[in-house]
């Protein structure tokens, strides 16, 4: 998935650090993770149990909910996609708060 707009580089780096910290990827540095590469399968090689841990960490850090693997497929397509997803959900939350 392509990012829909400008993604702050700090967010991308923070997400990479979150992935590394949460999944205890000791041999991997943030710069080793390619922004547009898949996180699961051929990319970082994460599995569905890793996804469960990431979901909890992302909700804790960014207050963004990923309810199931269908949504997760989009969110976890790459770090870029994850950043895009976080920004989109946070923006939607702000809008709904402003309206409500």
């Amino acid at each position: 998935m392509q990012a829909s707009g400008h993604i702050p580089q700090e967010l991308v780096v923070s997400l990479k650090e979150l992935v590394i910290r949460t999944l205890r990827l000791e041999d991997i540095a943030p710069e080793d993770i390619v922004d547009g590469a898949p996180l699961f399968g051929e990319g970082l090689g994460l599995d569905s149990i890793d996804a469960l841990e990431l979901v909890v960490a992302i909700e804790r850090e960014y207050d963004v909910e990923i309810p199931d693997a269908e949504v997760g497929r989009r969110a976890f397509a790459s770090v870029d996609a994850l950043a895009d997803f976080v920004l989109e959900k946070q923006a939607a939350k702000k809008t709904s708060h402003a309206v409500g």
Partner: protein
Amino acid sequence: MQWVETTTTVRFNEIDQWGIAWYGHYFAWFELGRMKVLERFALLPKDFAEQGLIAPVVRASCDYLKSALTNDTVIIRTHLAKPQTTSLTFQFEIMRQADRDLLARGETLQVLTRLDGVMIYKLKGELKERVESMLRFFWPQHSRLIDNVNARSAD
């Protein structure tokens, strides 16, 4: 630590030619223990299916410490580990009833998926209440464990 216990007797069809329980049967005994717990909280496979969900085991392990022998009655002890994610990790101990010798220790990890196989990351509704009730049984000091887990504040 809260454990639920049930027993079974090692049958002739469960032993090898040395009269020792075959290693694979320990997982069937784990299943007995897990069902005993899940039944109590209306979380049997049919209950998940009624909610449109499946709870497949995706990881299982067992450490074998001593042998169970034919006709031994074994105690299957089951405990639910404190969840860090939306998943169920059951821990097991197999003991010989006669001397309460610990024979094996094991663990299974279950995730939740919809009937079409899509994994669920958040529990909701009736099933969430039942799982919370089971969690409170094993972890009485955590009254809202699922919410705490999701906020990552439960230790």
